[in-house]
C-alpha cells in the first residue's frame, strides 16, 4: 500500500547516484526486498513505472530479488529458513529465535550508460 513511497526512495537514490556518475541513462536497478516486509512486487513495479517517468530512470528495468525469511535459534544456534507462520526451530523446537533475513529493503546496484 505504500509502494509509492518506497519507490520514491528507489528512484531518488538511483537518480542521485546516476547524476554523481555523470550517467546519461539508467538501464536497470537492482533491489532486494525481504518477504516479511509489506511490499508486493507487482505494486512496486507499477509505482516504479509511474515515478521513473520523466527521470533519467525512465524505461529502465527494476530487477527485484525477493529474499526468504531466515532465523537463528537462540537455544541451539541452528540457522533455518521459514515462512510467516512457522518461525520455530526445526532442530530443537524453540520459539526463541532471532530473525536474520527477511525484512530487507535495499537498493544494491544499477546499470548505467
Amino acid at each position, binding site marked *: *500500500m*505504500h509502494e509509492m*513511497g*518506497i519507490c520514491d*526512495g*528507489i528512484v531518488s*537514490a*538511483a537518480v542521485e*547516484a*546516476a547524476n554523481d*556518475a555523470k*550517467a546519461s541513462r539508467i538501464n536497470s536497478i537492482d*533491489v532486494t526486498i525481504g518477504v*516479511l*516486509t*509489506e*511490499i508486493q512486487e507487482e505494486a512496486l513495479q507499477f509505482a516504479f513505472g509511474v515515478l521513473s517517468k520523466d527521470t533519467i530512470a525512465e524505461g529502465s528495468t527494476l530487477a527485484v530479488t525477493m529474499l526468504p525469511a531466515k532465523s537463528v535459534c537462540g537455544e541451539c544456534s541452528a540457522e533455518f529458513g521459514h515462512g*510467516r*507462520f*512457522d*518461525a*520455530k526451530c526445526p532442530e530443537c523446537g524453540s*520459539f*526463541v529465535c532471532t530473525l536474520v533475513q527477511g525484512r530487507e*529493503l*535495499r*537498493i*544494491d*546496484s*544499477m*546499470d*548505467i*550508460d
Partner: protein
Amino acid sequence: MRVDIAKGILEKNDTLAEGNRALFASKGVFVVDLMASPGAGKTSTILATIAALRDRYRIAVIEGDIASRVDAEKIAAHGIPAVQINTGGACHLESDMIRRAVDTLDLDEIDLLIIENVGNLVCPTDFDLGEHAKVMILSVPEGHDKPYKYPGIFQLSEAVILNKYDTLSVFDFNEAEFRGVVRDLNPSAPVFALSATKGEGVEAWTEWLSARIEAAKEPQS
C-alpha cells in the same frame, strides 16, 4: 556500466528514526507506537493507559490521522499534552513527522510518549519511528482471522492488545484460534485481552508497559 549503491531504500526514514531514538534516550523518554485498524480503539486504549499510569509517569501523546484534530482534542481534554499530526492522505507516520511533533513538546517533562499511528494494519510496520516498542491492537469485531490476513503487523509488534473484549459474546470470535495463530507468528508477544472503554483487563497491559519502561531505564549491558 555497473554501479554499486548498497543503500537502504528507507535510509532517510531510518536515519531520522535513529536520531529520534537518540533524542528520546538522552531525555529518558519511553516511546510506544500503537498501531491498529481504524476504530479498533487506539484512542480509547490510550485514554485507559493514561488513567492507569498518570500518577506514575508524565505522559504525552502524538496523534496521527489523515485529517482532523478530533483525537488530540480527546486526549488534551484530560490535561495531557497532545500533538496532532495530519498526514494529508499518507497511510502511516514517518520519522520526520514524529520529529516535528516532538519538537513542540518539552521532553524534559515527559516519561512516556504514546504515538497513535494512522489506522492501518499494513503500512506502519515498515517504518521505524525511533520508538522503543511497537504494539498493536486488534478489536474483537474485526474477527479472529486477521493474523492470517495481516501477518506482518502481528509479527513486528512486541505485544498484542485484544480490545473490545466485552463484545466477545456477540461475535463469533474464536479466541483460542486467535491466540494460537499469534503465537505461531510471534511466540514472544503477550496478548492482553481488555476492554479499553470499560477498564477491564487494562491492568495487565499497563503493568507490562511499566515493566518495559523500567527495563529501558536500566543501563544497557
